[in-house]
């Protein structure tokens, strides 16, 4: 008894001060606030450097360009929090566009095509989920495999060529506006809000964090670990298909390889947003800010005539710095 009661007496004053700092840094919101500060700095810097940057049309450009990436990053966030990973999501986006285009060119109604693409997105999610939860394959390997399969299939079906898709009602999905805001941005924000509500308010959201934090303990406490992961893979597949449809509508064409190049941006945004690759930690708002940061960086550097090769370099540096700083923050906390 005396042993345990001596614990609180031991630490001195210095520990108390350290605790208030570490408390502040340790709050889950701290990472997001820091990220937001960085974003504001970035906005300020670019508006000083380029007169064209801080215009409404440019800002809505950034948003529209990032919307379909944001869609996939939004769905990827709970998946990674839940201990999964989906590298096939961008390939599914490519496949979805191709399916819509091919069905349309065969005279099938465009909306039936979209619906089919969404169903196929779900099916890919089921396949990924089955391989990971039932066959117990590492998600990195499993979805690397399905990524290759589905990006390959898109190429096979199109012969590697873009298929035009000019249907005003369909193209509205990519370039139309609601209340003066581009539709892709509205859709993306809607998805973020819905996922935030699910993650923070519902039992399912709780299961996601528990599953990613410690699957073994969670399953012993009666959490449906496999079902939770399965649902997350399906949501990811669905987001891939929706992103593909939006992208095809935006471009006015289904390009089989248009989305694949953005896979690393998606993963980078999720990690930059503070989601742990080991699962159990993260938030969709972090991902949203990170998506905006990466999009803004891209746009700002383009306005400043920096070559796209250097943009890749910058993006890498920002990612490493942000994740490194976050690690430092977590270490300070304990």
């Amino acid at each position, binding site marked *: *008894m005396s042993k*345990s009661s001596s614990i609180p007496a031991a630490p001195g004053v210095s520990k108390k001060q350290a605790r208030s700092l570490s408390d502040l840094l340790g709050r889950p919101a701290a990472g997001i606030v820091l990220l937001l500060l960085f974003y504001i700095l970035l906005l300020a810097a670019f508006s000083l450097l380029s007169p064209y940057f801080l215009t409404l049309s440019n800002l809505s450009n950034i948003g529209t360009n990032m919307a379909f990436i944001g869609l996939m990053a939004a769905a990827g966030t709970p998946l990674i929090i839940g201990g999964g990973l989906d590298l096939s999501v961008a390939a599914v986006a490519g496949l979805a566009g191709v399916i819509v285009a091919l069905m349309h060119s065969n005279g099938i109604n465009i909306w039936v095509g979209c619906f089919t693409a969404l169903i196929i997105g779900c099916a890919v999610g089921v396949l990924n989920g089955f391989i990971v939860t039932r066959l117990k394959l590492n998600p990195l390997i499993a979805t690397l495999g399905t990524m290759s399969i589905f990006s390959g299939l898109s190429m096979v079906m199109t012969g590697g060529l873009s298929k035009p898709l000019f249907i005003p009602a369909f193209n509205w999905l990519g370039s139309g506006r609601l209340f003066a805001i581009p539709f892709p941005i509205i859709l993306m924000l809607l998805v973020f809000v819905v996922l935030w509500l699910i993650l923070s308010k*519902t*039992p399912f959201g*709780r299961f996601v*964090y528990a599953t990613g934090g410690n699957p073994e*303990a969670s399953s*012993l*406490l009666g959490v449906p670990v496999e079902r939770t992961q399965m649902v997350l893979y399906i949501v990811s597949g669905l987001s891939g298909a929706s992103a593909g449809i939006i992208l095809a509508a935006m471009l006015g064409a289904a390009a089989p390889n248009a989305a694949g190049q953005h896979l690393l941006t998606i993963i980078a945004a999720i990690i930059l947003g503070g989601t742990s690759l080991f699962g159990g930690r993260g938030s969709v708002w972090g991902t949203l800010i990170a998506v905006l940061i990466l999009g803004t960086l891209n746009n700002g550097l383009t306005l400043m005539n920096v070559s796209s090769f250097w943009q890749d370099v910058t993006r890498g540096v920002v990612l490493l710095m942000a994740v490194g700083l976050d690690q430092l923050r977590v270490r300070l906390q304990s």
Partner: protein
Amino acid sequence: MTDERTEGSRNPRLQIANVTKAFAGVTVLKNVSLSAHAGEIVALLGANGAGKSTLMKILSGVYTLDGGQIRIDDKITTITTPQDAIAAGIRLMPQELSVHPDLSVAENIALGSMPKRRFAGIPMIDRPAMDWQAEVLLKRLRLDHVAPGRRMGSLPLSEQRIVEIARALSGKAQILIMDEPTASLGEADADNLFAVIEALKAEGVTIIYISHYLDEVFRLSDRIVVLRDGEVRGQFKTGETSRDEVLTAMLGSDLGDLYPAKSAARSDAKIVLSVEGLSLAGWLDGVSLSVRRGEVFGVFGLIGSGTEKIGRAIYGAEPAARAKAVRLNDIDIGLSGPRKSVRAGIGFVAAERKRQGLIGNLSVRTNTTLPYLSLFTQSGVVDQKREDARTRDWIKTLRVKTSGPDQEIRLLSGGNQQKICLARWLLGSPSFLILEEPTRGVDLGARREIYAEIRRLAEAGLAILIVSSDAEEVAGLADRSLVLEDGKVTAELGQDATATDLMRAAEPRSASRDTNELEKA
């Protein structure tokens, strides 16, 4: 023959003097002193949490001591890393086999200090030297029939154990610490290992032998040192002591008020849970038991006896387990997985708290409400205010030391984490609770509180199954208990069973010897 050396005037090879160690303000070793001579086997005994493994981890450089000193051959030796320990000639053979099954036997032995030669200035592994070194060591350990090039994984477990010893000896170890070396071995294999240990002793190697099996200890050791609650509570010459004397030193006769008073026998109370013919290949063989309302039922057994699996098998967390019948409140629920068990009204606290009990990076609140989250959910939304209030209630009731329900649970001490692991089941209304090693890694103060809570719950009508490898705990807490050895029930004991009774029943290998001793007396 070697006893002369231990009693001679030569100074001990290893001297541990007044070693002290504390974790987060909790003292786990208090002024521990012991010594061991060359060619001596010193057995280190103690119940779980007595401080054995902490002491051995200090010797092998995993932990650093807070006070006291270690002398080897009369020289003060500072050990702060495992490399220091190896340089000082100390090798630890951990309880869990730590071999690389896909490397060759010779590679396993030489790992860490591969013999090298240079070819055109590039260092390469000198395979002939490595194989030759392995061959010499294997011969010394009576394993001549094993070729150095064989894949480690193809050897039987017992021979892998001996290869581990060879690895320890390859660094010219003078002091070998063996932690439960026979835990996973059969009788014949254990005998073979003992012969090897005897041979090493004859060569002058100092051996610190940790085991729960008194039989082994009495057969092998020259001296016995008993630790309890972080202090040395007895030093015996093996030839001059008895099992009972050692057991008393180990377990203590003064349980004090650590355990709450047991209630009157309830042989008429309703049976809440009954299991018939529970089997799990390699672990359990046709175990049956039944637990009544208001009863604390204990299952005791040593490492490898099947106690590790019985709780989780009943809970449905061992997919390979089979049972003739599992009845909860007269309904046959079978072995249907944790999720269904939770719904049926069974709660489960796992032994491996960190790995299987906690979601470390989530809050105390989240960890508390997870199994019965549905009770806090209204129209699909978790009511976090109610969660918070109920968690605060339990934090207060069980006196959990935490900054609040939103603190990450990994930052709590073991005892406080365990209180949450218990509290989470009390939010619902389970009728049967399985507790595996309920106080492993928990300090004395929190242990008392957890025991009191367990008894209070039983008195409130819960049926409780305690699975523990701590005989004292089972004796102190259980109304009825059952002892397992080799997956089978060897004894069923009542309320008055002592820790010594349980230990005896758990060690069938010592049964014949016990009767001999009794006859002599």
